[in-house]
């Protein structure tokens, strides 16, 4: 007889292989990380620059980032893209708070040539007037479009208020940023943060050592000659602020608080607590606010990492009429974590879930490199994950409750609503 009521036996994740990439010194400060064991022809090359959003006033970091492949004295942007496309290369660029990344995806037979094209394009960036105008036009339109999205307004204003004590971290884009632009400040920014701003190179791909050496030669000249510094000791005075968005049928909620950097002793323990709160599909926030009340399509809480700090943010879009009801439920969930011990059933579920996710995050060379990078960026070694496994295995309800009492006090949260 089939036992359809009973779950088949579950075996815990016993062991996870964490693989360290090969590491090469480009300069004293800058390194290349290489994951070589890839069972197919794919390659990913990432160039990291000290050119994040916080590095320049208003929209300068975003504008320069968008212009990286906009043409040299000899080649137009279309010609550059044509030559890279002809080799089957895909370019991707990402601009985050503290870092800018340029990524190349290609087949290994084409890596050397594409790397040269990328090198030439960035080295020779000429800020051609027509290209700059074209980019500003597109960015300006996108800016206005984003101003109509509650999620975007909420996110921007949340950031501005959370980091208000630090000008570089709280500056926001304005419509006027895209009307006219100062070529000189753009060129200076480009020189400081790209041509002298490379902070690391990562490579995944089964390529030859010669290719790696060539990458070091080619991009090493952009290496930053000193360690970048990042903001810390952020303070906010705001509590709850609403930003109206005309015509919105939903309200975006962004609420959060400053936490700590990744090397903090409570980091892993808090990740456990945060998973319970809002970082997986079965979390307290999802179960209550989506699956029980149906107020939203999704709600989550995430730990965001900075070099010297970190912050927690709860993110959702809810029906306009249930904004206050949603906040009341969030408050209730924070309080429950402080006052009631987590049941052993939930504890075991989250324990297994987190170990399963960790196993998945280390699966394959691409995932493993990202995993390595996400600790190494902050000067932490792979031992972090072994400690994480040990802490996840040992977690007890009392510790979670203590963490909740320390870090999840409703009064400490900045609450931004937009809609």
């Amino acid at each position: 007889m089939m036992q359809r009521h009973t779950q088949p036996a579950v075996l815990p994740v016993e062991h996870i292989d964490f693989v360290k990439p090969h590491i090469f010194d480009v300069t004293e400060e800058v390194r290349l990380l290489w994951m070589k064991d890839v069972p197919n022809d794919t390659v990913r090359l990432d160039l990291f620059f000290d050119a994040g959003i916080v590095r320049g006033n208003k929209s300068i970091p975003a504008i320069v980032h968008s212009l990286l492949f906009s043409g040299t004295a000899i080649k137009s942007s279309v010609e550059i893209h044509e030559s890279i496309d002809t080799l089957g290369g895909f370019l991707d660029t990402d601009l985050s708070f503290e870092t800018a990344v340029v990524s190349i995806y290609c087949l290994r037979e084409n890596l050397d040539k594409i790397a040269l094209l990328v090198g030439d394009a960035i080295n020779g960036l000429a800020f051609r007037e027509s290209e700059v105008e074209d980019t500003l036009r597109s960015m300006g339109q996108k800016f206005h479009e984003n101003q109509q999205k509650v999620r975007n307004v909420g996110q921007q204003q949340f950031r501005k208020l959370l980091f208000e004590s630090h000008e570089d971290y709280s500056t926001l884009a304005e419509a006027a940023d895209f009307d006219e632009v100062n070529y000189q400040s753009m060129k200076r920014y480009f020189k400081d943060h790209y041509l002298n701003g490379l902070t690391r190179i990562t490579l995944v791909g089964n390529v030859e050592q010669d290719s790696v050496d060539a990458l070091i030669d080619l991009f090493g000249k952009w290496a930053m000659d000193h360690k970048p510094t990042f903001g810390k000791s952020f303070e906010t005075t705001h509590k709850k602020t609403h930003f109206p968005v005309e015509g919105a049928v939903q309200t975006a909620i962004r609420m959060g608080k400053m936490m700590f950097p990744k090397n903090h002793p409570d980091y892993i323990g808090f990740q456990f607590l945060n998973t319970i709160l809002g970082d997986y599909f079965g979390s307290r926030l999802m179960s209550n606010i989506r699956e029980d009340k149906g107020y939203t399509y999704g709600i989550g809480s995430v730990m965001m990492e900075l070099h010297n700090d970190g912050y927690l943010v709860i993110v959702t879009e809810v029906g306009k009429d249930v904004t206050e009801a949603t906040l009341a439920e969030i408050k209730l969930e924070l309080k429950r974590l402080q006052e009631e011990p987590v049941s052993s059933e939930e504890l075991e579920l989250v324990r297994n879930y987190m170990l399963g996710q960790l196993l998945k995050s280390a699966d394959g060379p691409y995932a493993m490199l990202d995993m390595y990078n996400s600790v190494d960026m902050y000067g932490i070694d792979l031992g972090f994950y072994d400690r994480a496994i040990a802490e996840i295995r040992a977690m007890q309800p009392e510790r979670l409750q203590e963490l909740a009492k320390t870090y999840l006090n409703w009064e400490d949260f900045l609450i931004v609503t937009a809609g």
Partner: protein
Amino acid sequence: MIAFNRFKLDNGLTVIHHLDPTTPIAVVNVLYDVGARDESENRTGFAHLFEHLMFGGSVNIPDFDAPLQFAGGESNAFTSNDITNYYDTLPVQNIETALWLESDRMLSLAFTPKSLEVQRNVVIEEFKQRYLNQPYGDVWLELRPLAYREHPYKWATIGKEIRHIEEAEMEDVKAFFKAHYHPANAILCIAGNISLEKTTELVNKWFGDIPASLKPDRMLPREPQQTEYREKTIERAVPNDAFYYAFKMPERRSFEYYVADIISDALGREKSSRLYGKLKKELKLVTSINAYISGSMDEGLLVIEGKLSNGVTFEQMETALWETLGELNANPLSDEEAARLLIKIRTAKEFQEQGLLNRAMNLCIYELLGDANGVNEENALYQSVTAKQIQELGKTMLRKENCSVLRVKAIQA
């Protein structure tokens, strides 16, 4: 090359097994041959609402997600106009939990009134979040009925209107389940470091006793051949004028589908594409422009969409757009341009096939198309397309009589 085994249970369930000894993670993917095109016109949005209900507990198991999370895994799903696809990833040693869960919800759902009530609300919020609460969000709700007159592609997966979701009754839900959720209407893929023997044993154990039903006949109204240029302009409080040109294109199972896909790449996939180079870079008429295909099973759409630069009129842009399309139809692609498009397709495919989940999904989709091995033949089909075939299809496809245009005129709120 993706190696696989395939077998069928007596109750009609098709099973695909894909061995990958290099990963500790397993994937269980279940594709149901039902999508928004199978809905009736006064009950739209149902296939998608149903996808949500599939997580609300099954006949013997009150909650779908918790046991899977307890086994270290997670799950999600998506609905399109053609299919509904569910997938679970978890440590391979616990794969039986996923089979237990998937088989029980194939057997029967719990059908609790609470689940229906809550998921109705969740889907309504999803409707607002994706389609109503952002600029240009409702474009597909307008474009589909313009391009399709008869075929159910005329409504979006989310549904024609919120009212249909609000009015969904438990009886409708049960009838939908009975018609579409049973072994003969599903394709199951088990992927990971698990042997064929073990797969056969476990699949038989959990799915073998699910009663068989007949695969429903799909008798969709045929979309009549379009013979006129269709235009519609809507006014919205958006920041900029936007345009959407939708051309009817060949169905998924035809060879011309691949040809059309290449045409869309030539027109507007990359920054080296024709429309991007001409309309954006050279003439500066638009701030963005893209071309892509809907990828649907029945007669689909090739769409060109973009936004006008400030001060440019729809007419100015339109003249340049048709000129560019005319050039593609008048002259065959150069060898160089063709090679550029094809190497991008090959490279993208290599990356796609890296992920175990992608491989499992694609095997199921190709099995639905007729043969899972199609996944291994796809690239060769693309590479075999000739400049002449592109030109010929372009001539029949990129015509005004085959096109539906939606313009979004920006007005002050």
